[in-house]
């Protein structure tokens, strides 16, 4: 076991002034500043460099590849006959820390094997914190957060509410094949996925 | 070999008729009892005879009779348990078929002893011919005045009724039998109160097996001590052993209590088919724990068998030779108990079905190595935790088969039918 609670060594006088630390900090940031400045200028003049000056991905022209486990907009899954898997058990509603799920149950007596179905199932994305507890709590694998939809915005508050039909119509994210230029190196989502899988 | 008491009538033509019975000394005992003995003396005599409840539990019959409250104002009943449903048992059928009036005489004596004026024979629904015979012979007895009012000119009245069950094994259990007799569903009652205090129709009731009652006239004729000496210590008299299975001469053999199992199988029942080896013996009906071939030197009486962890039960000996598939045998037994569980209390209701399904899966080639221990655990959990002994009856074979023939089961779960075993881990519940 490594003892991480190492006792602080008493600081020397010089250290106590914090000036060396400030200077070295300023030097570090300055180095980045000048190195990157130089690279930018060189690139502006068409010089090919091994490393890029910035790691920023230029959204929205380029999108980050989405990892399969990323929690994105919710969807509801269906049974083989197309009806919602959801049985309106309200586990997700109960566990939801943001209290953004609103379910009203309906009785389906035609099929006693299912009995209970949601009449309405609303998620207020304006309140949702994307914690994924609803997915964890679901005993029927009825709710998933794998649509890959991240850009969620609306002009009205009501527009932020997902309803049953919308969530049933959503599909899981296809392997979003996203490429972006990273200083001449092209990285794809699949590549990252692969690496991710081999790590796992 | 001691003389035969009941089975001597088996070979007599028309042994079931009143005339033949009386010609062989029948209805003497009751006459004497009614004239000369007080009810208490009868009970004492039976007590002396060490006659035990031959239906399976082995509770001394005289003791049971003595539990009847003397001063109860309620009517008392005698119920003869003829619901002989235990697999491997068929002795009562013979008695009812061939020793009918012996049984009646026993009923009369027992009724006199306990002060009952009404007796029932609760016969299992499947015994159609036997029931018809009983009804017919009861009619004869009534015609002769042996039943009904003022029997043999004494003040003793007795009505005898045949009640046919509807085919439930559990109705062989005395309280379930009483429920059924009352017209309800055959669900065992909680004890206490015992039937002797509060039985049929909430009145003091004695429930005795056919065989037990059938020995009573002889005991009263010859004396309790005489009968007692026929058997072994504390297990008085003779016993009808029904032998079935892989023997040359299956049948009912009347032998003294304490005859060794080996003697029964090899001397009386003619031994196994040539070239076969003995694998297992069930000594007392399917619910009795199984014995291996090494254990058959045991004396066939209640105490000796209990000592080696089995029981005499109804003395239905089932012999299995080496061609027997022990796993299937246990499955069949368990399936029977699952089918016959009354469904009242939880461990038996759920446990028997579960055990059957596990055994079925093993037979289908999908056994898992944990199944054996699970089955043993299930059996242990049923044992002793139910209202009636059916739970024990289901659990005992499970326990004994699994422990004594574990190797067979292990072979079954490992490479049954060559299908190969399924992974021990449960498959994902979501699939």
């Amino acid at each position, binding site marked *: 076991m490594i003892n991480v609670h190492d006792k602080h060594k008493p600081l020397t006088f010089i250290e106590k002034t914090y000036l060396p630390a400030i200077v070295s900090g300023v030097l570090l940031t300055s180095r980045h500043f000048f190195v990157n400045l130089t690279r930018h200028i060189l690139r502006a003049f068409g010089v090919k460099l091994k490393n890029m000056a910035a790691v920023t991905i230029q959204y929205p022209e380029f999108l980050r590849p989405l990892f399969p486990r990323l929690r994105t907009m919710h969807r509801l899954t269906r049974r083989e006959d197309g009806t919602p898997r959801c049985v309106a058990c309200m586990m997700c509603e109960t566990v939801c820390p943001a209290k953004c799920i609103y379910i009203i149950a309906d009785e389906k007596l035609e099929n*006693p094997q299912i009995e209970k179905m949601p009449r309405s199932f609303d998620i207020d994305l304006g309140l949702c914190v994307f914690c994924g507890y609803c997915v964890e709590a679901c005993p029927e694998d009825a709710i998933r957060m794998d649509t890959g939809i991240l850009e969620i915005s609306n002009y009205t508050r009501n527009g932020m509410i997902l309803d049953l039909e919308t969530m049933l119509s959503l599909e899981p994210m296809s392997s979003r094949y996203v490429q972006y230029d990273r200083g001449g190196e092209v990285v794809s989502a699949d590549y990252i996925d692969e690496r991710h899988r081999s790590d796992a | 070999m001691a003389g035969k008491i009941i089975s001597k009538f088996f070979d007599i033509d028309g042994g079931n008729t009143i005339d033949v019975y009386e010609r062989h000394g029948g209805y003497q005992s009751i006459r004497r009892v009614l004239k000369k003995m007080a009810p208490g003396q009868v009970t004492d005599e039976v007590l002396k005879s060490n006659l035990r409840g031959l239906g399976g539990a082995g509770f001394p019959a005289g003791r049971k009779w003595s539990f009847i409250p003397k001063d109860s104002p309620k009517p008392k009943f005698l119920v003869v348990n003829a619901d002989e449903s235990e697999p491997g048992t068929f002795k009562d059928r013979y008695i009812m078929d061939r020793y009918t009036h012996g049984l009646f005489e026993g009923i009369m004596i027992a009724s006199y002893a306990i002060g009952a004026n009404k007796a029932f024979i609760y016969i299992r629904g499947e015994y159609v011919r036997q029931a018809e015979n009983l009804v017919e012979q009861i009619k004869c007895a009534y015609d002769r005045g042996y039943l009904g009012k003022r029997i043999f000119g004494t003040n003793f009245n007795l009505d005898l009724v045949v009640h046919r069950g509807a085919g439930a094994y559990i109705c062989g259990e005395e309280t379930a039998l009483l429920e059924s007799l009352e017209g309800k569903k055959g669900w065992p009652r909680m004890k206490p109160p015992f039937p002797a205090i509060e039985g049929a129709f909430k009145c003091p009731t004695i429930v005795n097996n056919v065989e037990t009652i059938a020995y009573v006239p002889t005991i009263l004729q010859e004396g309790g001590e005489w009968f007692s000496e026929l058997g072994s210590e504390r297990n008085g008299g003779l016993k009808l052993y029904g032998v079935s299975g892989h023997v040359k001469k299956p049948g009912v053999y009347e032998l003294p209590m304490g005859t060794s199992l080996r003697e029964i199988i090899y001397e009386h029942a003619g031994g196994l088919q040539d070239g076969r080896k003995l694998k297992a013996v069930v000594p007392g009906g399917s619910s009795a724990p199984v014995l291996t071939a090494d254990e058959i030197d045991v004396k066939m009486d209640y105490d000796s068998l209990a000592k080696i962890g089995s029981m005499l039960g109804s003395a239905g000996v089932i012999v299995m030779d080496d061609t027997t598939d022990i796993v299937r045998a246990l499955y069949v037994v368990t399936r029977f108990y699952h089918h016959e569980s009354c469904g009242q209390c939880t461990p038996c209701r759920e446990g028997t079905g579960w055990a059957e399904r596990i055994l079925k899966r093993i037979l289908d080639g999908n056994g898992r190595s944990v199944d054996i221990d699970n089955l043993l655990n299930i059996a242990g959990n049923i044992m002793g935790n139910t209202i009636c002994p059916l739970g024990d009856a289901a659990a005992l074979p499970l326990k004994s088969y699994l422990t004594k023939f574990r190797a067979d089961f292990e072979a079954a779960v490992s490479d049954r039918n060559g299908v190969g075993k399924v992974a021990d881990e449960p498959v994902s519940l979501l699939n």
Partner: protein
Amino acid sequence: MVKVTIDGIEIEIPKGTTVIQAAEQAGIEIPRYCYHPGLSIVGVCRICLVEIERMPKLQVACYTPATEGMVVHTNTEQVLEARQAVMEFLLVNHPLDCPVCDQAGECWLQNFYMQHALHDSRMFENKVKKSKALQIGPNVMLDSERCILCSRCVRFCDEISKSNELGIFNRGDRAELQPYPGTELDNDYSGNTIDICPVGALTDRDFRFRTRVWYLSETESICPGCSTGCNINVHHNDQRTYKAGGSRVSRLKPRYNPDVNEWWMCDAGRYGFTHVDADSRILAPTRSIGEEQEMSWGEAASEIMTKLREVISVHGKESVGVILSPQMTNEDLFVARRFFRDGLGLKHIDFEVAPLTTGAKDDFLIKADKNPNTAGARLLGVGARQGSGMTVAEMLEAARKRKLRALYICHHDLANGFAVDVVEEALTAQDLVVFQGPNTNSTSALAHYVLPAAAFVEKTGSFTNYAERVQMIHTAVTPLGESKADWQIFRSLAKEAAISVPYFEAEDVFQALTAEVEAFSGLPYAGLAGQGIALRDGQALPESETVVA
């Protein structure tokens, strides 16, 4: 009395007490399914197995009588193992319905699994299939797969409702609860089978799927359905009213009171709460002379008092009739008495309206008098029979003849007690008709002013049942809209009339009531909660006296 030792606790109990009851008294909870104190003992579930010294096998605690010197252990290894085994057996064929099962959250299988079992499943086999979602009665839904065959409901129908509708059919694990062929579970107490069902086999068709039980809050109250005054718990849903279509009260459940209703209540009472959230609720004080117009309490009080004073000054005090209601609490009636009788000096005050059709009754819980507080109103002397004024019938007659010029009617739908044209003629002949009540009815339609009163779940107060037992109701949900408790309405009117009603809480009213009214004197307010207090040692009044004449 016998002395027994349970888990080391020595306790003295009356002879004949069973071990499970003795343990309860010692504060030890033994799990149970089939045992119910109100029903006969069958000992079938086997979960209550305990170890008793000098007994070879485990014994069921529910059936075994405690005897002198008995030493019981409820938490030995053997007991825990057996308990766990029984739990496992119970769950062998129990479907994994918890997500859709209404019982989830108050399910004894769930609770005891968490408390006593927590085993991993060893079950790889298929479960036994039985019928699901079977409507076995107007109020009850049966799911046989979930049934653990504890037979409580069967025994209830045999022993309590004595209607024998239910039976267990078939054997072994195929055994199934069913109503007998050709019958359905439609006795007057069928809802109780749902309460006593420890699992989700019997569920409430009214409550089914409306909400989840863990969203509910619970408030002690009294059923206002008849003069029995069954003790109930109001289960209300405050946070998620969008479930159950906006209704705040989700269900009523009986509350144990050995002197009134034991564990039970009738279906009429159980399902008779819908008016609380009905569309017919009056939400604000309304003036309905000419065009209907909502108004504030201040406006309403001053307008009504002005008109009332006008009537009194022109026609005299004899020209005003007040019809109170036995639906109101003792507190409401007391403040009404203080305001109308003592304050305004009115003479014609009554509360009794005999219904045109006599209510159903039986010899168990259901009383013909469908009002919870008739006895209280009588004891408070706010009836014509107790005072000297006109009865309601006389009032209507006088109103028709315009001898009465103003009527103040609380809660009553007069059409229930009188011919419609009589009521209409009488009310239209008035200068002022004020109706005060929670819901609109044919009488409120004829009133000049309609005042919203809080429903019984929205106020605190006390009812006096037929046997003169004073019992408390408590505020479960906030009053709908502008409505407030009847006594608060009288208080605001009294303020306009400069009559002192110095009460701020229902408790204040009650204290004044006990001080002023002989029959109630000495009642401790704090003692009312829970089981209530009988005014005359629980002796029931003769039935004839309790039926509203």
